[in-house]
């Protein structure tokens, strides 16, 4: 366990743009050879309609708890140095970033896979909502990831974190080596075995 492992979770007030360099700097470390990031940005169209902006709101204390729980879950599945997750509230214009995730690790596979896991989990379980605003109306969006996950809410796992995907049981035995055989559990619940090529890193 690295002593200076760090996790940062933030929800920004309205009209506060995300300074991605702050979060990249946060996760940077001499020991970490890889930094993986994800940026969610407002698209200009949805089903042919012109999007003016997205407006975000959140159940802030619970959202922060959920995001911390997701980072915890990521740490138990991948060998991470630092993780940062930040989400904006209020209006986010086309092209602007609403959510940003940065993860660092010694070898790249951990940061890359953890980054994907975190955004997938944010979309499935964190109580944040966005309203899509068009020139002629507005509508609350719904993440399909939430619909797939909602039956799991309220069922506690061993760690009491309801709703967060159970990857740690699958990955726990893999922590020592990033180059060994991996069983990857997809959303469709099909298990796929990725064999080790025996030489160097897989990805």
């Amino acid at each position: 366990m690295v002593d200076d492992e760090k996790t940062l979770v933030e929800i920004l007030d309205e009209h506060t743009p995300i300074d991605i360099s702050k979060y990249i700097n946060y996760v940077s470390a001499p020991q970490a050879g890889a930094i993986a990031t994800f940026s969610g940005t407002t698209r200009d169209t949805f089903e042919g309609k012109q999007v003016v902006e997205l407006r975000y709101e959140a159940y802030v204390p619970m959202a922060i708890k959920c995001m911390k729980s997701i980072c915890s879950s990521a740490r138990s599945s991948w060998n991470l140095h630092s993780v940062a997750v930040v989400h904006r509230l209020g209006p986010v214009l086309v092209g602007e970033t609403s959510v940003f995730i940065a993860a660092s690790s010694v070898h790249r596979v951990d940061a890359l896979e953890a980054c994907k896991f975190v955004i997938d989990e944010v979309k499935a379980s964190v109580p944040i909502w966005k309203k899509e605003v068009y020139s002629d109306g507005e509508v609350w969006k719904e993440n399909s990831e939430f619909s797939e996950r909602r039956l799991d809410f309220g069922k506690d796992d061993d760690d009491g974190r309801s709703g967060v995907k159970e990857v740690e049981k699958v990955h726990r035995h893999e922590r020592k080596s990033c180059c060994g055989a991996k069983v990857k559990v997809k959303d469709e619940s099909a298990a796929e075995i990725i064999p080790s090529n025996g030489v160097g890193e897989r990805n």
Partner: protein
Amino acid sequence: MEGETSSDIVGLTVTDKKNENSSVKIKVLFFARARDLTGLTDTPLEVPSGSTAGECLSKLMAAFPGLQEISSCVVVALNEEYTNESAIVKDKDELAIIPPISGG
């Protein structure tokens, strides 16, 4: 006893000790579409002691018929954690009505 104040909890007195288990008062939070449909960000709710989150939800649906539009797709959170509808609510709990989320 006759002459006592009725169901409103106005403060603890010695006689209230006999009644302290009869009802609980919780705070209900409405988000996103739920807030649009009720016109409220939050509301107090008093329910019989031992009521479940599901029973609270039913009471809310009755009090705010507009909520029925999303009744099949909301989840609830109790004290900032997702819960299922059989969870028992306690006094001063915070129950959040969570329509389908769309963060990220």
